[in-house]
């Protein structure tokens, strides 16, 4: 039930403590932390380097989109706690970008809902990545793999 879009870094331990403390029905937390990956291996051998990236977003729309994604997860799984913290602005390689955490009595629901939230926020929340590479700046294109990952949660 917490959604934050912020420029500052976050502390995972503090965030997760706050999320689960006081709720005695939580048996498991499933968590995802997205990081700025420096080395990208493409097509199995070619290596690109990303020194930093800048995340642009659409203030106002971002929060609404994340709230809708979170509400959908709560409709689908019995969740006791949810947290999405997504950063924007410039981040160097190795920095944290996003934290998604889900608390549930049962771990299966926590894992599924966490994966769902990550998949959907990648394709349904208005964020755009601009990478700084040795050959210049480059807007990241949408990944077909992300679309496929998101599509598996579409209701038949």
């Amino acid at each position, binding site marked *: 039930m917490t959604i934050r879009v912020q420029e500052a870094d976050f502390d995972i331990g503090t965030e997760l403590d706050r999320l689960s403390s006081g709720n005695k029905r939580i048996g498991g937390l499933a968590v995802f932390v997205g990081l700025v990956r420096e080395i990208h291996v493409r097509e199995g051998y070619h290596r690109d380097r990303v020194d930093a990236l800048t995340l642009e977003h*659409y203030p106002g729309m971002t929060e609404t989109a994340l709230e809708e994604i979170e509400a959908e997860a709560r409709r689908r799984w019995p969740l006791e706690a949810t947290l999405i913290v997504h950063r924007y602005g410039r981040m160097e390689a190795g920095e944290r970008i996003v934290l998604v955490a889900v608390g549930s009595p049962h771990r299966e629901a926590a894992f599924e809902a966490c994966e769902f939230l990550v998949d959907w926020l990648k394709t349904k929340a*208005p964020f755009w990545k601009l990478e700084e590479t040795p050959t210049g700046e480059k807007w990241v294109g*949408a990944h077909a793999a992300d679309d496929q990952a998101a599509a598996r949660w579409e209701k038949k």
Partner: protein
Amino acid sequence: MKVRYFAWMKRTVGVAEEEIDPPAEVRTVGDLVTWLRARSDGHAEALAEGAAFGAAVDKRTATFDVGIAGAREVAFFPPFTGG
């Protein structure tokens, strides 16, 4: 009505946002795209037919058949790449 552009579309159009006053026959997002293309080469390139971009009306994702009557803000952007 305000129009906003994000990511590479902002650079191609040349502005992050602009105030526009389209004629009454511009009723939908799709109509607006067609109308905006005529404003500059940058607009024409960013909003080209076949280019992969999406839209939002008043900060909610909108398909091209969505009406824009009464909208305060229409945005255009490339596919999302967050997370």
